[in-house]
């Protein structure tokens, strides 16, 4: 029985570890300035936890087999523990766990403790059941007023977020259903939600932030590679949660400028 247990625990351990090491299923390729740094912290954590995982499971299986009841041949060690060992493994774990945390904390601070750079691209993200809208403030760099009474989701875009066209600052606001951003430039996000909580998750950017009704949450990030990236809503928001999907198109600065100009022109 001890051997069967050892076999099963070791098998589970090695099969599980194999797929982690082989990276059969893994993080999507990163495409933001912070992605490689987050991935490094991820790797550090994963190596440490992986070693502990294998060591603990292997010893569990091994002990079960080695110390199986073999009648009188087994001598039991009548021991109530060992204070020195308790102190050693308590301090080791404390240093390891809390140290790991401290090493990672500057990464967390990077996108949150300082405001976005002055030359960043401003985009306001609005989540509603079950779509994302993106607003660009236009040349005046100011978002115009919105009014809940004007919100009309069936008409989409400007009408969906209830843009108040009587406000002068609204005139040059552009609202779209796909997010366009220029590569290698910081994006200054404002996240909002009109009905329930949604979460703006772009796995390739290692970016996730809830959009909460009543709050305007500021975040910033920098895309570093051209391409199309998927947005998946990551907070349960109702029956259409699974299809609250959107796209981010990272384009060159020139393409971004001409896209925005075309969109402005369309509006006039």
């Amino acid at each position, binding site marked *: 029985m001890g051997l069967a247990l050892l076999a099963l625990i070791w098998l589970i351990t090695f099969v599980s570890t194999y797929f982690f090491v082989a990276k059969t299923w893994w993080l999507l390729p990163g495409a933001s300035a912070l992605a490689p740094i987050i991935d490094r912290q991820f790797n550090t954590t994963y190596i440490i936890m992986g070693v502990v995982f294998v060591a603990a499971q292997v010893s569990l299986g091994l002990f079960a087999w080695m110390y199986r009841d073999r009648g009188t041949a087994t001598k039991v060690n009548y021991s109530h523990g060992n204070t020195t060992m308790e102190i050693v493994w308590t301090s080791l774990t404390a240093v390891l766990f809390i140290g790991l945390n401290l090493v990672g904390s500057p990464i967390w601070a990077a996108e949150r403790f300082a405001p976005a750079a002055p030359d960043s691209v401003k985009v306001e993200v609005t989540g509603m059941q079950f779509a994302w809208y993106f607003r660009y403030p236009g040349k005046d760099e100011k978002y115009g007023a919105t009014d809940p009474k004007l919100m009309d989701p069936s008409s989409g875009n400007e009408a969906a977020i209830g843009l108040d066209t009587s406000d002068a600052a609204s005139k040059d606001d552009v609202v779209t259903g796909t997010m366009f951003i220029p590569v290698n430039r910081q994006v200054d996000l404002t996240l909002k939600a009109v009905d329930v909580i949604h979460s703006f998750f772009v796995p390739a950017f290692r*970016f996730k932030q809830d959009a909460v009704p009543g709050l305007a949450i500021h975040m910033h990030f920098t895309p570093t590679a051209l391409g199309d990236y998927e947005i998946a809503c990551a907070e349960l928001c109702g029956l259409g949660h699974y299809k609250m999907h959107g796209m981010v198109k990272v384009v060159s600065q020139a393409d971004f400028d001409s896209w925005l100009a075309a969109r402005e022109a369309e509006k006039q």
Partner: protein
Amino acid sequence: MATHAPIHAHAAPQGFIRKYVFSLDHKVIGVQYYFLALVAVFVGMFLSLLMRIHLIWPTASIPFFGDIKPETYLTLLTMHGTIMVFFVLTTAPQSGFGNYFLPIQIGAPDMAFPVLNMLSFWTTFVAFVVMIAAFFVTGGAPLHGWTGYAPLSALPSAGPGEQLGADLWITSIAIFCVASLMGALNFITTILDLRAKGMKLMRMPLTCWAWFVTAILGLLAFGVLLSAGILLLLDRNLGTSFYVPLVVVNGQIMGHKGGSPLLWQHLFWFFGHPEVYIAILPGMGVASQLLSTFSRKPIFGYRAMVYAILAIGILGFVVWGHHMFMSGMSPYSAFAFSVMTMAIGVPSAIKTFNWLGTMYRGRIRFQSPMLYAIGFVSLFVSGGLSGPFLAQPTLDIQLHDTYFVVGHFHLIMGVAAIFGMFAGTAYWFPKMFGRMMNETWARVHFFITLAGTYAIFMPMHYLGMAGQTRRYSQFTEVAYQTKLIPLQTFMTYAAFVTIGAQLIFVINLFWSMKKGAKAGDNPWESTTLEWTIPSPPPHDNFGGHIPVVNHGPYEYSVPGAPRDYVMQTDPPMAGVHPS
């Protein structure tokens, strides 16, 4: 050790109703809780089976059930989570086994407040009926997830099931909170006041320590959830705005303003995180008891184990914010919550080291209770080690609300806790029913279930890293997620096998109650007080006399002792470790 006339003493009842239905006997109440949890776990498991089928075959029609629509999937998910967390993980390990064995293990004839005990069971029962009723009302059960985040849970128009079904869901949880508060008070009083002579706190079996700390957690946590639930009911029905700011649902302005969606999350997780420990601590207690018993060796580091349980209890109340790193709360507070969360990994690691230390140089008997206990340790390690990923806000950015989280909590608070219950069942069944469970079938069940649960829940970590978001009824809408469907298919097949294997357990349970071999008083050669009395125990446990305790709970293989175990009530003996 009360000096006044003990209010817990009561004569054995004669009629069927007072004996088996409205019983004051802690043992009957314990069994009632156990069977309530058994019914609940099969309901919850059936819901998860439907979910697994829908994820792979979204258009499949289920016999007697019909089509599963995306909103039906969310209903299944909500009810699966709620039923499992409240009516299984909170009910069986603490209220079931705790009720039955806590008084016996500390040498008391009953719980401190038998009437309160009966009330708390029947209140839990009412809560369960109200919860199940949510399936059958117009609009059906709610779809807001077991976490019930506002405003989704606060707005009847936010989705199907958010009408009467959601009100019943909240009401059921509120009733459950009241029941749990009664239970917690009873447990704490019993441990503080009714210990037999010589049963010092530091001589209590680790199961009792676990039930004690769990009861304290319950006392402090359920009151907060109760208040939170009442506020949510007010928001829904009386137009208050605790959790709802001005919101517009599908073009309609709702009549709320100024509320805070984050307030619900804070209150919910202030309960929700201690709840994780409410679910797992009793399992840790059982694992400790069994690893020592079946390794025929004293528990390694008894005091360290007690301190670790206490540390987990205290730290458990200051880590709730790690569920909210992405919620929009202050990013500065994430620092504090993540450091505390990493710190709670330390006592958990101490426990694991001590369990391995207990097995080290022991003489291990592989009877089924021990197999389940070793399974518990393996699952606890696997589920625990994904914690330090999620505890770091930096990594949580990617992993929050993905399958990684689902895998993490299912391994540790779901399956590990359930292995604790399997272990407890296998170990105490002979005491409860006077018969042994069938050992062969218990082993078959153990091996299939351990392999099966890993096959279901380990792949969830891979999915989560690859960005698979949780609570999606279909994976067809997001291109990078469609690539992960083959792994989901594998998990569904693993779930079929594992769920099927649970029939072995339940058939063995009922078959053995009738046909199992007769059990003696102490079939496992254990040391604690429940093994000094007949199986099953008489109405007042100790037949009118209160035992005197002379030894610690885990005195195995004492050199020079006549047997390889010294029971807690054995007379004082040279060579036994003083405690």
